[in-house]
């Protein structure tokens, strides 16, 4: 519990919003001041958010630092915030990447600077709020708020050619998922209210209810609909679009490619994690029986995403598009680990969300850096950059290895845990997933080789400047974290362990109900 009773979570969430309001009062011509204020306050938010792991009780799987106030009593809506091991690192990741986004936009955004930073800051408030909200109404408000600034970031500051198309596509896809989730939320609300007689949007209360799982409608051999399955699917649609899982991923390459660098960083780094977070928190946490029912479905989609995403990467000519598709593949790992439904898998996938946020965020920063210099993202336009930009090449290499999953760097820890988790359940899942890792190494190394190694193939590349201090500072914090998580992941895993254990324990109980068999031990599941 929060001893001092200080609304730390609200402070972290709303500091960016307050900054945005502050920016309203700065004249638009004073661009330097606007940048300075934005950077100052996003860094401040990050520093405040670092206080979270300090005061966080690592031994508890419960919600901590909770803040609760009544909001709309007539509907049972409250302002309810809290953090647990699953959301803790995602919040810190959000604040870090937001600060880096401000920094990386310093020179590249010169048009309508004021609006740009206002949108960026609004986005930050929305993202943090999603991870911290413990009331469905509040959660949904934050969830949707995120879409609006991102729409404008892509649409106004995106790459001129296709920004409008990419922006509306992003907005339409995600909004469609969201409204379906809204129906799911309402269904849960009324169901639980009818059961207990107390209508509330309190997520923790709603998690205590066991939702009906008797078939209401059946398509023989295909699917059985129960109340739980239907609601599960409503949430699934929203999160699967956000993650994005395989058949719902088509908005992603466009949005990521056309967005300005900071937009891509935040999209890949945090927005995708909102989907993963939603799966763990709501699908796994609230509907365990339905989750078991859909395991084969989810694992299939995940494996398809891993392999398909990786193979599509191999043929990309545009660097940003390549990294965008690599996200599909990497997020496939996250969902695979999650739906292994055991400690290692879920823990690995939560950690891998952080890892992917760091490494893919950094990769987009890297592409942004050379795009700022050359105004092209085509792989063919580069070659031999390592001789011209050695610092850049070094940082790129580290990030690339982190993305591939080289031991010693963060990606390895997450992927390893996910594979262990998957292997416990079925060795074939792990085998397919490993294919993805091999392909991942192939496309990343090939990308690096084509752009960095050899002699300088284009004359205009021969006098490119290496990174300046500001630019290096956008990458160095990430590199440090990559090593930290890679070499000493214990604190990160320890913080999330009790919370993940809670989810997995509940799933185990549900499995007993579903299968009627004896419960296997928690850490080592026998093969199914």
């Amino acid at each position, binding site marked *: 519990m929060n001893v001092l009773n200080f609304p730390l979570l609200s402070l972290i969430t709303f500091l960016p919003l307050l900054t945005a309001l502050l920016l309203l009062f700065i004249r*638009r011509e004073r661009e330097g001041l606007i940048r300075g204020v934005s950077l100052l306050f996003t860094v401040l938010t990050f520093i405040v958010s670092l206080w979270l792991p300090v005061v966080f009780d690592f031994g508890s799987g419960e919600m901590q630092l909770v803040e609760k106030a009544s*909001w*709309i*009593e*007539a*509907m049972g809506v409250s302002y309810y915030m809290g953090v647990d091991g699953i959301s803790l690192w995602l919040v810190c990741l959000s604040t870090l990447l937001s600060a880096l986004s401000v920094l990386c936009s310093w020179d590249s955004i010169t048009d*309508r600077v004021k*609006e740009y930073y206002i949108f960026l800051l609004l986005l930050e408030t929305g993202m943090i709020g999603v991870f911290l909200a413990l009331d469905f*109404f509040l959660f*949904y*408000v934050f969830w*949707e*708020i995120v*879409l*609006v600034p991102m*729409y*404008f970031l892509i*649409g*106004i500051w995106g790459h001129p050619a296709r*920004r*409008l198309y990419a*922006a*509306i596509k992003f*907005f*339409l896809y995600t*909004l*469609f998922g969201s*409204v*379906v989730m*809204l*129906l799911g939320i*309402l*269904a849960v*609300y*009324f169901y639980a209210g009818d059961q207990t007689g107390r209508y509330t949007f309190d997520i923790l209360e709603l998690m205590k209810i066991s939702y009906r799982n008797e078939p209401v409608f059946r398509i023989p051999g295909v699917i059985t609909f129960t109340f739980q399955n239907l609601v599960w699917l409503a949430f699934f649609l929203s999160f699967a679009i956000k993650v994005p899982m395989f058949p719902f991923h088509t908005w992603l390459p466009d949005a990521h490619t056309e967005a300005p660098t900071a937009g891509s960083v935040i999209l890949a780094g945090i927005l995708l994690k909102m989907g993963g977070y939603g799966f763990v928190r709501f699908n796994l946490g609230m509907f365990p029986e339905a989750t078991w029912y859909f395991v084969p479905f989810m694992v299939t989609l995940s494996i398809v995403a891993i392999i398909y995403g990786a193979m599509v990467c191999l043929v990309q000519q545009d660097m940003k598009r390549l990294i965008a598709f690599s996200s599909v593949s990497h997020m496939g790992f996250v969902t695979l680990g999650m739906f292994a439904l055991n400690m290692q898998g879920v823990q690995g996938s939560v950690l891998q969300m952080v890892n992917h946020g760091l490494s893919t965020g950094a990769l987009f920063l890297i592409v942004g850096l050379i795009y700022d210099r050359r105004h092209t993202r085509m792989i063919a336009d580069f070659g031999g950059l390592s001789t011209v930009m050695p610092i850049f090449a070094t940082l790129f290499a580290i990030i690339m290895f982190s993305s591939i999953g080289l031991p010693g760097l963060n990606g390895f820890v997450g992927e390893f845990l996910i594979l262990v988790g998957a292997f416990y359940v079925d060795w074939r899942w792990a085998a397919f997933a490993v294919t993805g890792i091999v392909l991942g190494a192939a496309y990343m190394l090939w990308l690096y080789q084509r752009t960095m190694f050899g002699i300088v193939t284009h004359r205009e590349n021969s006098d490119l400047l290496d990174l300046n201090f500001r630019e290096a500072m956008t990458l160095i914090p990430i590199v440090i974290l990559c090593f930290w998580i890679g070499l000493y992941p214990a604190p990160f895993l320890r913080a999330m362990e009790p919370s993940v254990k809670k989810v997995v324990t509940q799933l185990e109980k549900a499995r007993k109900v579903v299968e009627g068999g004896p419960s296997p031990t928690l850490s080592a599941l026998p093969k199914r």
Partner: protein
Amino acid sequence: MTAAFNPGADTLHALPEVFLCTMAIIVLILSFAVPDRRGWMEGLSVAAVVGTGALLLWQLGQPVSAFSGMYLVDNFALFFKAVFLISTLFVILMSINYLHLERVPVGEFYAVLLFSTLGMMFIASGGNLLSLYVGLETMSISIYVLAGFLKRDRKSNEAALKYLLMGAFTSGVILYGIALLYGLTGTLDIKETAATLVQMKLSNPALLLAMVMLTAGFGFKIAAVPFHMYVPDVYEGAMTTVTAFLAVGSEAAGVAALLRVFLGAIPQIQGDWAVLFWILSVLTMTVGNVLAMAQRNMKRMLAYSSIAHIGYILIGFVVGTEQGISAMLLYVLIYEFMTAGAFAMVIYLRTETVKGDLIEDFAGLARVRPAAAAAMVIFLMSLTGIPPTAGFVGKFYLFGAAINSGYIWLAVVAAVNTAISLFYYMRVAMVMYMLESPGPVSVSSSRSLYAAVIFAVLGTLIIGIYPGPFLELAQASLMGLMK
């Protein structure tokens, strides 16, 4: 059952209407004596609306039935009257500068506007099918005049004529329905009608015919699909402030009449008849949204959008529970703020030289007038139903009512429609923020218009962020109306 007729006391109960009517007549007479540009008419009209509003506050409390039950003062009436007055206030604020741009006689406009509001207020208070009908006609005839106010504009002429013909036909249909009910029950009092009809079955052909007539008639008034054909042309052709009045005031009045008649008089509306409204609701929102996507003219787009919103509002009617109806009321209130705001922005773009009603006229607005563009984004978000705006709360509550009563598919259709509507609402945002204007962007600034926009923004955000009191207001407004 019928209360005694007591002229003195009853007139006192109708004091808000009496006051409004007097003010309207004063405005009309003064308009012959005072030149347009003095600002008298505007001042008097605002005073009329605010004064009437104050008198409404004084009426809060016990429900009253006056003029032998023809005129009711209950929470429902007060709620809708407040809604009408707010919408009239919006229209006056928008009109102050705009009327000069359009070069129309000012005094007549405000007088007719106030008469129309008077008609709406009688609808809200209608305890008798005949008084309700008279209110409906007072409102409609005034609006026919308003729609044709641009005497030299062909489109305005067309709008007025179309609206007149359609409206006259509709009134006939409604009157026919009322006559059939009268024939069945021998009374025009709404409560007594209900008491008699309770024993009848829907299979009674006369009753069935009456309900068909009334459904079609009110369908026209609220512009539900397939009775919506006239709406886009009328909305496009009429002066923008009149369009705004049609969209927020007249639609709300239609909803009030619908609820008074169907909920009050015809208990058979629940059950089988709801299926018909289920279909109407789905059709209305879907057709409205799909056709809105194809529009290039802002006023036409908002016309289709208003059709779509009527579709959402009908969800509450289909559900028919207290929750459903209160969701309708809340949505009407919310709809008023966001739609008035959007129309205010259309008027903002009207200058001496530019008509400003095409979507592309909004191009580059964000660069020149960032605050105005931001306000428009808030209205658009609200119309789409994105939090933290009022539109979200309205939809949230409507969808909730639908799901709670088991209308899952209706909620699903509405959700899909929400996603569709995003496309055309956000296109306006896109034009404002992401396209550049070919020429200089000109706007007509006026303090009263700013006041309207600020009022609308505040309404949209406050209901969006703190909806509790408004929700309770909507629920309290049903007291005595629902069984």
